[in-house]
């Protein structure tokens, strides 16, 4: 006696039936913008902690420069990649 059909059950749990993804420049800019918003919130949290509790030490100042410097570099590379897309 057959109680279930495997192919039918699989289809019940498939929420997204994606076979192909098409990427265009608009999609990349949208991803970039979304990421930038999240990045801004998280870096704001870090900045708050460094300013409020870092005691103004040299290590914290260096960390700020390195963090934002390297971040800027990768953001510029990301923008360049979309522009050359």
């Amino acid at each position, binding site marked *: 006696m057959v109680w279930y059909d495997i192919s039918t059950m699989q289809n019940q749990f498939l929420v997204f039936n994606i076979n192909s993804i098409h990427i*265009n420049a608009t999609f990349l800019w949208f991803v970039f913008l979304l990421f930038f918003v999240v*990045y801004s919130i998280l870096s704001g949290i870090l900045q708050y902690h460094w300013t409020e*509790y870092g005691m103004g030490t040299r290590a914290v100042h260096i960390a700020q420069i390195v963090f934002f410097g390297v*971040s800027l570099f*990768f*953001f510029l590379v*990301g923008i360049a990649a979309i522009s050359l897309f």
Partner: protein
Amino acid sequence: MLQLDSDEQVVLEVRKHWIVFVSQAIFLCFAAIAPPFLLAVLSTLLPIQITTEGSFVAVAVFLYCLWILTLWISFFFYWTDYYLDVWYVTEKRIIDVEQKGIFSRNVSSIRFDKIQDINVEVRGVVATFLNYGNVEVQTASETSGSFIMKNASRPELIRQVVFSQHNKQSERAQSVHIIKEHGTEHTTKF
């Protein structure tokens, strides 16, 4: 911001050894090189066709930049957690700032006259070689219990500095200040 008295100076900052931070953050290095392998595995497991209007290399570079930025932020969250978890040994007291993650923070302090003993425990070859260990400051107070810094860097130095400050504090407590008629202050020891 931590509030110190006007005549209070920080003598020593005590943190966990850098190896603790490195051991927590090391997986980020592996995560940084993971995407090409992950892509290879996913392309075999998931039969999804990805098409682009432009260069696929540009898309790959763009996504990799976002990935590295994500790891970069994670790295600094780890570093902040490590750096803000600290003891400040001042001329008057020890201030224990306990940072648990990013959003949990506990600050407590103990005066030197409440300190009963300091235990230093260096266990293992790596800890001996890199000079780190557990430091426990036992207090006379029933409410505050003891201060413990696990895997603290230079534990012997911490003990020396704390004892030194403790002795200075005891000497100060035994002093009597005599203010003469001229307004100048003299200190006499018993």
